[in-house]
C-alpha cells in the first residue's frame, strides 16, 4: 500500500551530496543579497523588474531542483509541478492585463 512507508528503489540516489546543499544555500543567500542590493541602487531602477524576476526565478529553480530533488527525481513529478505552475502564471499575467496593471494603459 502506498501510505506504507517504503524504502525500496524510490529514492536511491535521488539526491545530491551534503556539500552541494551547502553550496546551493550559499548561492541562494548571495542571490538574495543581490536582490536587495538591486533594490537600493537607484541607477538600476529602470530595469529593476526584469533583474528581480530573473534573480528570483533562479532562486526558485535552485530550491525546486536541488532541495526538492526534482533534478534527480522522476520526470512525472516535474510535469505535475510544472502543470500547476504554468496555469498559475498564465492566470496571474491575464489578470494583470485585464486589470491594467501591465500592458496598454498600465499605470505602474
Amino acid at each position: 500500500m502506498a501510505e506504507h512507508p517504503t524504502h525500496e528503489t524510490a529514492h536511491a540516489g535521488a539526491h545530491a551530496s551534503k556539500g552541494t546543499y551547502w553550496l546551493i544555500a550559499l548561492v541562494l543567500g548571495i542571490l538574495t543579497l543581490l536582490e536587495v542590493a538591486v533594490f537600493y541602487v537607484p541607477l538600476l531602477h529602470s530595469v529593476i523588474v526584469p533583474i528581480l524576476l530573473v534573480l528570483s526565478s533562479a532562486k526558485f529553480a535552485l530550491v525546486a531542483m536541488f532541495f526538492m530533488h526534482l533534478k534527480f527525481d522522476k520526470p512525472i513529478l516535474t510535469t505535475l509541478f510544472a502543470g500547476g505552475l504554468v496555469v498559475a502564471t498564465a492566470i496571474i499575467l491575464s489578470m494583470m492585463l485585464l486589470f491594467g496593471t501591465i500592458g496598454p494603459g498600465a499605470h505602474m
Partner: protein
Amino acid sequence: MSAHATAAHPPLYAGGLRSWLTTVDHKRIGVLYGVSALFYFVVGGVEALIIRLQLASPTADVVGADTFNQLFTMHGTTMVFLVLMPLSAALFNYMIPLMIGARDVAFPRLNAFSFWTFFFGSVLLNLSFFVGDPPDAGWFGYANLTSKQYNPGMGIDFWLLSVQIMGIASIASAVNFTVTILNMRAPGMSLMRVPLFVWMALVVQVLMLLAFPPITVAFIFLMFDRFFGTHFYIPSAGGTPILWQHLFWIFGHPEVYILILPSFGVVSEVLPTFARKPLFGAPFMIFSGILIGFLGFGVWSHHMFTTGLGAVADTAFSLATMLIAIPTGVKIFNWIATLWGGHIRFRTPLYFAVGMVGLFIIGGLSGIMHASPPVDIQQHDSYFVVAHLHYVFFGGTVFGLFAGIYYWWPKVTGRMIGEGLGKLHFWLMVVGMNLTFFPMHFLGLDGMPRRIYTYATDLGWERWNMIATVGAFLIAVSVLVFFVNAARSLASKTQAPADPWDAATLEWTVSSPPPEYNFAVVPTVNSARPFWLHKYGPTRDISTRTKAQGTPAQPDNPPTRIDLPSPSSWPILAALGLALLGGGALVGLWMVLFGAAVLVFCVYRWAFQPLERTGHPTFGPAPSGGSS
C-alpha cells in the same frame, strides 16, 4: 460461479451502520456518494419543480420573490455541487480501481475523509433551509450583492462556508485519484492502455486541483469582507465586484468541464461495448479530452461579455472559446465512427449514451452562439443561457451519468436492472427534457431574463413557460420510473453475471459485485481491451501485436493472503471537525476552535494509526480483529 463466490467471502455490503461510517473501501464509498447524489437530485429536482410551477403562468403565486431567489440559488448550487460532482465521484470511486486493476485507491482513508467532508458540507448548505435563511444570490453569487450591506442575513455565509468545505473535499479527492490513476495501475497498463473513462477522470482530477483554489481564494475574500470588514469587492473603497467575477469563472468554466468530462468518459466506454468495436481513434479521444481541459482555463471571461471588459479582451476570450468546439467535435465524430460498422445492441445504457451524444450537440452548439459576444450580449442572462446550460448539464451530464449507472448497475449491485422500465425511463426523460428546455431558447430570444419570479402578462411568455412546466413534471415521472426500476432490481434474486455486456475492460473480469479485495490476483495487462483480447484472441484485435492472450476472468479465490486497509473512525471524525470548524463561523469563535481541536486531534490519531489490519484473512469468518 457467482453463487460460489458469495459463499466464499463475506458479502461486500454486509455489516451495520457502523461499518458504513468507518469504511475505507472505495466501493462502499462509491455507493455512499451515489446514494447521496441521487437523494440530492430529488431535492434539487423538487426545487426546480417549484420554480417551474411559479413560472407556469404570469399570475402564479406559488412562492414569493425572496423565496424564488433562494430556490434557484439552491437549485443551481445543489445540482452542481451536490448532484453532478458526487455522482461522478461515485462512478470514479467505484470503477477506477477496478478498471486499472488496483485493490483500492492510493489513500483509502483520505478517500473516506473526502466523502464525509463533502457530506457534512452538503448538510451545512441545506441547514440554511432550517434556519429559514437560504442563500439567494444565484449559484455564482456575484459580488457585491453578496456583501453584508446588500445581504445582511446568514444565507450567503451558509453558502460560502459549505461550498468552501466541499471544495476541500474535492481537492483531497482529486489528489487521491490523480495519484491512484498515475501510480496504481496494474502491471502492463501503460497510459495509452488506460480506459477512456479513467483518462477523462484523470483530466477531471487535474481540473479540480487547479480550479478549486481560485474559488477558495474568492470565498476567502468574501469571507473577509463579510466577517472582518475588508473591501475586496466593495466599490466605495476602491475594490471592484468584477474581481469576484474573474475569480469565480476562472473556477467556473473549468468546473463545467469537470461536470461534462466524466460523462464523455462513460459514453466512450458504453458505445464501444454495445457496438462491439473498440473506441474509434482512442488516442485522439485522449488528447482531445486533455485539450478541452487545458483550453478550459483560458476562456472564463466568456461569462462576462456584458461586463464591459473592452473589445480586445472580448475578442481574445471569444476566439479561445470557439477553439473548444474543435476537440469536442473530434469526440462527437469519433463516437459516431465507433458506432459505424458495429453490431449495435440496443440496451438501456446504449440508449442513454446515444441520447447524451444527440442532446449534448444541441447544448454545444448553443454554447458556440454564446461564444460570439455580439450574439451573447442578447442571450446573456436570458433564458437562452438557461436552455444552454440544461442541454449540456441535463442532456450531457445527466444522460451520460445515467448511461454509466445502467451500465455498471449489475457490477455494483450484483443484480440486473429492468430493460423495459429502463427504456421507459429513457423515453420519458428525452421527451420531458426537450419539452422543458427547448422552449427556453424561444423565451430567451423573446427577451425573457433569467432569475425572475414573475413576468408581465402582456409579454406573451406564458405559452412556452407552461409547456416547460409540463415537461419538468414529465422528467419527474421519468425519475420515479428509474427509482421503481432500481427498487425492483434490488429486490430481485437473480444474480448478475460477471460480464453481462460482453465488455472489454478489467472491471468485468471480477464477480458482480466484486469481492472486497477486487482482484484475487493482480492482473497483468497487455492491451487497451485486455478482457476482450482474452475472449476473442488477438486476431480480432489489430491493436495488439503481441501473441499474449489478454487478461482472463479472475479466479474465485485468492491464492495468497490479502491485506486490506482496516476501517477507521478517524476520517469521518476529522471531517466532522472540519465541518464544525467551518460551520462554526456561523455560531461563534468557540465553535471554530472546538472544530479545529477535533480536526487536529483526529488527524494525529489518523496519522499514527496503522493502515492495514495485519494478516486479516479475507476468507472464512468475517474479520473480528480490525483496529479502530
